[in-house]
């Protein structure tokens, strides 16, 4: 069993379909709530909680970790794409009915923060087949202990695109903050950036959302907080290691 118990602040509630009586629904720890208007948390469905439980569990094998994190990432991307602008389009169906539908306006691209963010590229491609994907490498500078940009390769016309910025774990948010600065430096307006994230710390995501009030954050879960080593509590460990090397 775990040595450190979960802080009492973790919100716990019964999860399940609305038609089921509360007594028939299991209870689980759900995402914390933050007051930022530009942070969107996925609906806390029992299925999402079960998927998160799989990838959080230290005993989950790498193959399962990859499979279940991909499923969550697809849900994240589907939700993220909901925030893009649309125009109306009426079409005729194969049975002759008229459907008042819609189309997307504008172009998109993905930008992954290496290396954990690259693990989200497959989920993005599952939804957007031929999407362009840029990469940014940010590492901690040994001398200053601050994040430093080592490499970037982005689509040339990125200033004209909506950017889906990918990074699964958000603790203090040093890398994500620097990545947004890089994108803004390339002429991407702040309101055209969507940050897709799996698990965030409440303090980190709140200050990030306040620093960039016009971008949007879509996350699957906001955890309880950070520990003394700045790890997310309860978190899931190092996402990149669990996805790529362990």
């Amino acid at each position: 069993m775990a040595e450190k118990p979960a802080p009492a602040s973790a919100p716990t509630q019964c999860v399940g379909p609305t038609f089921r009586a509360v007594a028939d629904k299991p209870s689980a720890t759900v995402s914390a709530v933050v007051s930022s208007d530009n942070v969107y948390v996925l609906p806390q469905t029992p299925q999402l909680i079960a998927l998160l439980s799989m990838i959080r569990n230290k005993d989950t094998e790498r193959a399962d970790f990859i499979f279940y994190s991909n499923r969550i990432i697809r849900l994240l991307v589907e939700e993220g794409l909901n925030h893009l602008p649309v125009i109306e389009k009426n079409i005729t169906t194969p049975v002759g009915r008229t459907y008042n539908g819609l189309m997307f306006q504008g172009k998109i691209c993905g930008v992954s923060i290496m290396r954990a963010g690259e693990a989200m590229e497959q989920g993005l491609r599952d939804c957007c087949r031929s999407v362009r994907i840029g990469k940014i490498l940010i590492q901690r500078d040994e001398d200053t202990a601050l994040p430093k940009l080592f490499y970037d390769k982005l689509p040339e016309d990125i200033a004209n695109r909506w950017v889906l910025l990918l990074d699964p774990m958000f603790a203090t948010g040093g890398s994500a903050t620097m990545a947004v600065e890089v994108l803004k430096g390339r002429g991407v307006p702040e309101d055209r950036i969507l940050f897709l994230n799996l698990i965030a710390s409440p303090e980190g995501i709140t200050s990030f959302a306040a620093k960039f009030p016009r971008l949007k954050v879509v996350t699957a879960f906001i955890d309880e907080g950070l520990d003394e080593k700045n790890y997310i509590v309860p978190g899931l460990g190092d996402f990149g290691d669990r996805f790529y090397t362990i």
Partner: protein
Amino acid sequence: MSQLESHVTVQKRAYYSPPWADVSIIAVAGSSGSGKSTLSQTIVKKLNLPWVDSFYKTLTPAQSKLAFANEYDFDSPEAIDFDALINTLRDLKAGKRAEVPVYSFAKHARLEHTTSIYSPHVLVLEGIFALYDPRVRELCDMGIYCDADADTCLSRRIVRDVRERGRDVEGCIKQWFAFVKPNFEKFVEPQRKVADLIVPRGIENRVALDMMVQFIEKKLFEKSTHHREALARLEVRDRDEPLSDRVVVMSEGPQIKFMNTILQDIDTSAEDFIFYFDRLAALIIEQALNNVQFEEASIETPPGYTYNGLRPKGEVSAVIVLRGGSAFEPALRKTIPDCRTGRLLIQSSYSTGEPELHYLRLPEDIHKHESVLLLDTQMASGGAALMAVQVLVDHGVALERIVLATYSAGKVGLHRLMTVFPEITAVVCNLLPHAEQRWVEKRYFRC
């Protein structure tokens, strides 16, 4: 129409009886070699009906020895397991699946495996003592006795036993005079008196054969008419009532609306259609999985913290309603790669529009699965869905465990389904005011 007010919920429950719920049983009795097997098989072939074979008792070692020496009396009612037969017939009469033992004449023993019979509309029960037990006669809709000359019987029997059952001629003759003939006089012949129809000259009797086929066809037609009437009656009730809260309609965010626009546009390319259908189907399945049962699970994360999460309570399997439902399979494999999957083919009759069950393969232990997802692309009148749920019920799946997931459904059909089976959950992407003919599977499979 029969209707019950449930005391637990205010939901009104309607009753649906599938066409196989009241199977007609036709018994064919007669002496060994009288041509009853040939006659029955001809009927079965002409009408494409299932076939019930022998219900001989398993022999004790001593009896088995006698049997191999051709000294065991197979032609006495004692050799027949009437209790097992009656249980099977009663299950079938109740519309349930029944396991029929398989008897090996070469080994004189019941084999390990059984054949399962499910959902026949008419059943032909053939055997020398088919009309012997009054309990069997009570379950039968028609009793036929095949009459034949004793010489013909003996010669036919020798040919059959030597050719098909690996006996020698001497053994056959020994059996004839020791058992068959005395038993015939004692047990078989009296059945003439209780039969509805006596057919002389067996298979050569074309007139009798045609009469029987006609009778069965009439029975089938009556059943089909009653089934269609019952479906129509279910449709007219409660059209304007709100849908059950167990119907989960997916909220139409911009992304789902965008995918719908592409899927429903008649000008969309096949490549795009398949891609976007797979993508949307994955979301429908994720949504369906939110309605299965979970249990609490406390887990430890790598840094050593505890998380109070959930895990599925048990196995989730799927049943595909062919052909449409198989468009969900790529999405299902993406979500539960090793999901055990049953399949059933229901087609609407071209002439009458009546849904008919043509093919069925389900996991043996499906009644033990925690949840069963029932997948179909579209629901129009709900006739196929009603039948599919009834099939699961007949195989022991509790209604609360069934989650039906579909791309689109007409409101009337869905309402009808939920009135008959209020305990199931239905997940629908598009709820349509009117029923619509099936087009999704044509687009997905391109034919």
